């Protein structure tokens, strides 16, 4: 209500890092998100031969892309705030989640190709 003028919520967005580290990290996440969507679209090509086996990686990559998109704002905020506070908590959960997603995608794809 009062926050609609954004004086409070925009405060952590300001940072004085000349290297624009939060912006670069945000763009890196965006690129990753786009690549994930590309992989998801490519998996669509697997539906005719593989059927349900292809639906699983499509769902996994879609959900991961959506979660990244939802979390982008908060991540940027966190890193911009971290630049002013001189400390950023290690993004362990995000790294583990994204890493596991790509590992699961590759394993499912390998199983699909091996089983024909």
């Amino acid at each position, binding site marked *: 209500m009062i926050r609609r003028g954004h004086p409070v919520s925009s405060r952590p967005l300001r940072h004085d*890092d000349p*290297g624009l*580290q*939060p912006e*670069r*990290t945000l763009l*890196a*996440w965006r*690129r*990753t998100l786009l*690549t*994930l969507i*590309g*992989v998801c679209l*490519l*998996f669509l*090509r*697997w539906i005719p*031969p593989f059927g349900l086996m292809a639906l699983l990686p499509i769902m996994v990559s879609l959900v991961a892309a959506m979660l990244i998109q939802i979390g982008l704002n908060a991540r940027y905020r966190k*890193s911009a705030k*971290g*630049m002013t*506070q*001189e*400390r*950023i*908590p*290690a*993004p*362990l*959960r*995000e*790294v*583990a989640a*994204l*890493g596991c997603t*790509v*590992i699961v*995608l*590759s*394993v499912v*794809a*390998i199983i699909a*190709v*091996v089983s024909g």
Partner: protein
Amino acid sequence: MNSPEPGNVTPPASAPVTPPERGRVSASLLGGGCEPDPRFTLANERTFLAWIRTALAFLAGGIAVEAFTSDVFTPGLRRGVALSLLVLALLVSASACLRWLKVERAMRQRKPLPLPVLVPILSLGGALVAAGLIVFLINGAS
């Protein structure tokens, strides 16, 4: 400042900072040490993301080879190329996570950064796939 509680005193930058509200699992994974420069944390995150994109590119290549090259390759070769790309994707993504963790730990301990294990894996894997394709092309031409 004006309160007598010692809890309000901010520690000097060089002193090990008390760990924030972090779970036991992540605390044990990251090890001790002090919080690194936030720029380093972000740089490590971006490097991890770049490796993940590399893995995703390999994955996309494997999917595409399996889906689009049935007119070009024999079934066995197609499966071989697709599988090697997919296995590379798996290796790169798994070691991207491990490397991120190793670098994060090294930064917290103020130790030298670990050598990249991914680079030889990647160049070897890429060379193997390329060699396989060259053999295929030579065989197809003759």
